[in-house]
């Protein structure tokens, strides 16, 4: 790694020359803008960054970044990223995927990347619909959803991205929403800084096929009452006037009012990203609108061994123990004889 001072880059330097081809009004634009914006802050030269994606509207993302990029095939981005990262751990790798790409066809690669704790950042654009194929329901679509493929409503119980990620041993799990650009930027930055697989679910509005899916979390009038912005070490408080909190009743979270003074901050659940066991993160992942405010922010962030580091450590250990392999030597392994 060079020690020269890097030229000061701006968001613009991270824009490729390709025309952006999302529908006007699509939430993807906001995400792209924030990703470009935080890039200079990471202090990583463009050539050391790789964006890998699958197939879907969201997966067009790499084309718009002036970094190395790979628009792969449907669902396989995490697998491909694993190869990139094992081949060269020095690269900073982002995986961009959708709720269909990442959780339908690609669910298995996603959970395996997560459990291996590869040092990649996975941005899952959850619009609860298949955008690119023009509007079928996805594994995150709510039960009863009417779409082109479910004219009488879907009968599949949906998956919850954060729960499945936590079930797959995730070391970093966060959630944000396209319309809250500052928070989104902060989350993506936190993800990039995390060593290990950072999984972020980004609520993303598809204004063509599933418009308004996340209005509850973005509309001024209600969002403070329907979302809970997590802060490490802080009590879980939400509501327009910070007048509500989350308390634990046994293993069940409950909403309490801070207004009447019966309840103090200290009675509330305090957030702790760093817990060794992910039970709190899991519990948070179950809190859902309208019963609960939906948690936004980092649910979990712990240090765990990195997969690619393990691979390279073994290589280095082997080289140390046996010396760098000599071709002549392996030819002579086992019994040899002369004729």
């Amino acid at each position, binding site marked *: 790694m060079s020690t020269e001072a890097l030229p000061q880059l701006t968001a613009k330097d991270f824009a*490729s*020359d*390709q025309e952006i081809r999302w529908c006007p009004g699509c939430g993807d634009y906001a995400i792209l803008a924030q990703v470009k914006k935080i890039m200079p802050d990471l202090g990583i*030269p*463009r*050539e*050391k960054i*790789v*964006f*890998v994606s699958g*197939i879907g509207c969201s997966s067009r993302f*790499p*084309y718009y*970044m*002036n*970094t*190395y*990029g*790979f*628009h*792969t*095939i449907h669902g*396989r981005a995490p*697998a*491909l*990223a*694993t*190869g*990139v*990262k*094992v*081949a*060269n751990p*020095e*690269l900073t790798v982002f995986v961009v995927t959708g709720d269909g790409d990442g959780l339908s066809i690609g669910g*298995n*690669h996603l959970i*395996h990347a997560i459990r291996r704790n590869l040092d990649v950042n996975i941005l899952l654009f959850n619009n609860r619909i298949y955008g690119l194929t023009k509007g079928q329901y996805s594994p995150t679509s709510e039960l009863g959803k009417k779409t082109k493929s479910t004219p009488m409503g879907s009968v599949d119980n949906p998956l919850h991205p954060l729960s499945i990620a936590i079930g797959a041993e995730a070391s970093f799990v966060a959630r944000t929403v396209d319309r809250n650009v500052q928070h989104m930027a902060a989350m993506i930055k936190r993800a990039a800084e995390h060593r290990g697989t950072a999984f972020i679910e980004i609520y993303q509005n598809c204004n063509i096929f599933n418009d308004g899916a996340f209005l509850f979390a973005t509309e001024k009038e209600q969002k403070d009452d329907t979302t809970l912005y997590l802060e490490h070490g802080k009590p879980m408080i939400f509501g327009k006037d910070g007048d509500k909190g989350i308390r634990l009743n046994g293993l069940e979270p409950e909403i309490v009012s801070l207004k009447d003074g019966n309840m103090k901050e200290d009675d509330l659940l305090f957030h702790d990203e760093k817990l060794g066991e992910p039970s709190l993160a899991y519990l948070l992942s179950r809190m859902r609108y309208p019963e609960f405010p939906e948690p936004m922010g980092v649910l979990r962030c712990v240090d765990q061994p990195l997969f690619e580091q393990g*691979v390279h450590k*073994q*290589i280095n*250990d082997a*080289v140390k*123990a*046996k*010396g*760098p*392999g000599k*071709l*002549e030597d*392996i*030819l*002579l*392994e*086992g*019994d*040899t*004889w*002369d*004729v």
Partner: protein
Amino acid sequence: MTTQTKTAKGVEQRTDVTIRFAGDSGDGMQLTGTQFTRTSAIFGNDISTFPDFPAEIRAPAGTLAGVSGFQVHFGSEELHTPGDEVDTLVAFNPAALKKNIEDVVKGGLVIVNEDSFGKTDLKKAGFESNPLEDDSLSQYRLIKIPATKLTKEALKDSPLGTKAVDRCKNFFALGLVSWLYGRPLEPVVEWIERKFGKNPDVANANRDVLRVGHAYGETCEYFENTYQVNKAKLTPGKYRRISGNDATALGFIFGARLAEKDLFYGSYPITPASDVLHALSRYKHFRVKTFQAEDEIAAICSSIGASFAGDLATTGTSGPGLALKGEALGLAVMTELPLVVLNVQRGGPSTGLPTKTEQADLFQAMYGRNGECPLVVIAACSPSDCFATAIEACRITLEHMTPVVLLTDGFIANGEEPWAIPDVSQMKKIDVKYAEGVNSNGNGEGGFLPYKRDDRLVRPWAIPGTAGLQHRIGGLEKQDITGNVNYEPANHQHMIDTRAKKVALIADNIPEQAVEGPDEGDLLVVGWGGTYGALKSACDRVRSQGKKVAHCHIRYLNPFPKNLGDVLKRYKKVLVAELNCGQLRFILRATYLVDAAALNKVQGKPFLISEVENKINELLAK
């Protein structure tokens, strides 16, 4: 067994001998066979082996399904197959006898462990009466040895338990057979000591039983004579034994070194390819990165990612796994990245016969993807040839930025043969051309053009980490030169044509097709892959009978060598012999409109030389 001369003192001279060790999966037959092979190789014979495993890990003891066999062919002349007929069968139980007796030459030796021919043993194997007592084996020379009893006696003072003692009986057989064929015991003793060094009781027991078996041969008076198979006249040099899978693994390591790259092998275990993963995972000090993926799709995708990131990327599997890789292989074709896909063919379709050999994945390798999706296909012809062919696959993929499918099969993957260890200093480096910088003409503004090709139509390889060459690739059709996504009709046609032409042009960078035998004549026997030995041997035989028959072994299946069409035309008849229903024949017919005859066999087993020979004679007689 081709020639035999009796010398004095009851030693019969043979040019070559085929022995098959067969028993229950738990009887240690693979080990016995391997040790005998090793000794024969060290002794100086040419060898060829054919292990035959049951599909189950350990099927119920004594059943036909549980029989495990190991055939070794050793000789004083060059050998190319593990032998058509078995000269000596060592059968450790009735099931092994039943399953293998048909392959024994009439008059051949059949050595059985008579202690394992009890009533229940016979029943498990489905014998109605005891074949050792009725006259069903009258065509063979039957030798009954009480191997279990003698082993027990030999070890009555050993501290080992009954089970462990019983497990030594395969060394009794090994000792006996070593005596019979005049093999030295030292290599085995040495191996025992190395292997069981930490467990001296076991080491002692095995060694003792080995010696008792050897002595038994001397004293039992069952055998009319012993046999002698002289050293083979092999090209001088240093030799070792090698299996196809090990050779492939070494070939990949060499390919990477010769190109000065790290090797990445992404794979998901599958019989009979798993051993390549096992072998490579032991070479981490060669900067080999093995990745056991969650499935075959992840395996190939991780390899494509590794290739993008600059490693020499390889992935390996067998038939059903290749089916799963089809979509991603298309991505590799579209993105024009180097990638070697090893397919160790096994019996199909579907799960098929997982432990048996077959050549029925040629079509799949050529056509098993959506769209017009050409890539390179090459095949290895013998265990040791896997080494050279794997290197060749690495060379082509790196020099031409195109995926290469490397076909081997279960037969050569598991089979072993002696291998003249190559001279590393003589090996040619693989010349990898990297993108050297921004390659747009004139103004630097245009940036890097990832699909600007050289005169071989090869695009430049720009590896992440290289400043200024940031670019994006993917599976959508792309504009030539810029690599940008492009849906224009004319561009699509151009790219379809260009991808095809790029692969076709590789014909300029591979050897012309050679034949063994006359340059023109009555019959050309065409084959590919692991049938090489049988076809070559059959052709040699009929040529030695004066027939004008040549052998054309095709290593480069796509593109074909440039002169192949001409070669085919120089013979009155063409026979394509394959372990499938005629896949290469189909492609040759379509490509050259040659009315080739077919010899096909789909039985999970390699060709016998005699089968090929008979077909040749039949065609010549017509």
